[in-house]
């Protein structure tokens, strides 16, 4: 089985994240890391590979610096990596992103595509189902548990209204939540071996030059930073803080 795991380089959620006024991520302003959810997606693939015959490809689209996240995936155990990088894709919306990723997946070949349920930066959560539509295959998204077999995939889908048991025939695209798997750490041996694993770099011309033509687009008009919140009243409880808080809430007409 060939499994493609989608990964993304994102600004670290533990630090400040900055947009330019045109709404593009300021990559200089924060540390870039592999999105935590992608490590879980990769773990789902790796744990299948632990006891089954499988080839795992880590795939990302992003600037040159995104090589780092692919190296991390290779160190964790992915067999090869694909990096879609093209200046024409900078600032892509969801439509362009999904089209380019789907074209790269088609080129790589796949039985199963595994993604995180949503990235920590964009939080869109739509790329997996968009990719599935481009590929003409089923999607199962927001899975908290996954069972992979050679012909089909099944799992529990987490929604606002409860859980849903779902399955699909392969090939398919799935996305997993943070409850799906605890990722392993790369071993020293894994890190050393990662350096020799294949990493393909593809541009739009290597995929299909027509993939982006004719698509509607979402375009950012403005991006405005909100004023930072400042601390208000802070009291140390000396036996009466609960009453003081009640007075504050009453004065603010909140009770």
């Amino acid at each position, binding site marked *: 089985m060939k499994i493609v795991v989608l990964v993304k380089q994102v600004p670290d*959620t*533990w630090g400040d*994240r900055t*947009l330019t006024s045109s*709404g593009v991520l300021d990559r200089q302003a924060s540390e870039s890391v592999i999105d935590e959810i992608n490590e879980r997606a990769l773990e789902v693939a790796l744990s299948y590979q632990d006891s089954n015959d499988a080839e795992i490809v880590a795939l990302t689209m992003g600037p040159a610096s995104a090589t780092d996240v692919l190296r991390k995936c290779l160190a964790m155990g992915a067999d090869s990596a694909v990096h879609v990088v093209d200046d024409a894709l900078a600032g892509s919306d*969801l*439509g362009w992103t*999904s089209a380019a990723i789907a074209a790269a997946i088609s080129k790589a070949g796949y039985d199963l595509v595994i993604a995180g349920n949503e990235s*920590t*930066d*964009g939080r869109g*959560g*739509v790329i997996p*189902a*968009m990719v599935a539509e481009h590929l*003409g295959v*089923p*999607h199962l*998204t*927001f899975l908290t548990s996954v069972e992979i077999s050679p012909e089909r995939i099944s799992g529990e*889908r*987490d*929604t*606002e*209204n*409860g859980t*849903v*048991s*779902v*399955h*699909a*025939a392969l090939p398919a695209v799935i996305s997993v939540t943070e409850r799906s798997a605890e990722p392993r750490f790369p071993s020293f041996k894994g890190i050393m071996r990662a350096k020799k694993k294949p990493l393909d770099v593809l541009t739009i011309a290597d995929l299909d030059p027509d993939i982006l033509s004719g*698509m*509607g*687009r*979402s*375009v*950012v*008009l*403005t*991006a*405005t930073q*909100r004023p930072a*919140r*400042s*601390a*208000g*009243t*802070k*009291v*140390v*409880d000396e036996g009466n*803080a*609960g009453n003081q*808080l*009640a007075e*504050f*809430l009453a004065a*603010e007409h909140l*009770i």
Partner: protein
Amino acid sequence: MSNVLVLAEVSNTGQIRNSAGMLLAAASSLGTPVAVVAAAPGAGAALVEPLGALGAQLVYVAETDQVDVLLSSPQVEALVAAAHALTASTILLANSADGRDVAARLAVRLTAGLAIDAIGVREENGRIVATHSVFGGSYTVESAFDGEVAIVTVRQGAIEGKADAAIPTVTTESISVDAASSGVIDAVHEAVTATDRPELRAATTVVSGGRGLGSAEKFVLVEHLADALGAAVGASRAAVDAGYVDHALQVGQTGVTVAPQLYIALGISGAIQHRAGMQTAKTIVAINKDADAPIFDIADFGIVGDVFTVVPQLIEAIGKRTS
């Protein structure tokens, strides 16, 4: 006025999901609100009156016997059919798990522009403009669309107000759905909502508890304060990971984003990932033993103290004021 389509999500027991009201309210500000439902043959009729009460002037019922069997594709086909039949160029869906999946596939099918998680949507010079709150509310971003069709998912609870009730006209069409490219629903386990508390995403007051509560048993303190205030209950990821409460209550970067009038954080340190889910609350109150907890940096009223002594006193004081 142009037709604005809204996907009305319906449970497998025929209940219209809460998001329909908010979406129809948004649609009524843009054009003629049209509710689109995918329903089993004959099941759509019962939905017409309630959708009219929520503001739908037209209800487009797309009938297929696959509606409770196939994942997303009945709704995608319903919207494709409605968009063509009604020449609609704006389609609104909830930013729910189901709504996002449908919006995703629909956008590719219609080669439409897709904007997600809008907290507002308006028309400006003939263009649809969506407003988004990104990076946990640190930025406000406005987006528009190039192309003929705009698809927007709207954050649940983000839009207040209600469309005027209408007696809708009804169009019923039969649709066919391709099972081969669709996931299959085997069983639905609806969350048990035995609680009378408001829904977390839409609540005007939220009381959240963190690791500082110490155990699942002691977490009831959060519930007691929530009930005294008529509030929803939330939790930090640390409290969820420690098993105090269910994952569905997690507020933060990877959980629910809330923007209530009042947010009370009990025993929550306020890691940046938690703040990303609540820092746009109008008023923030924090109670924590640790005077250096980062939550105090954004709290309008902070108390350095023990939640187990401060909160009971607060509940008693609230009781005195309301009785």
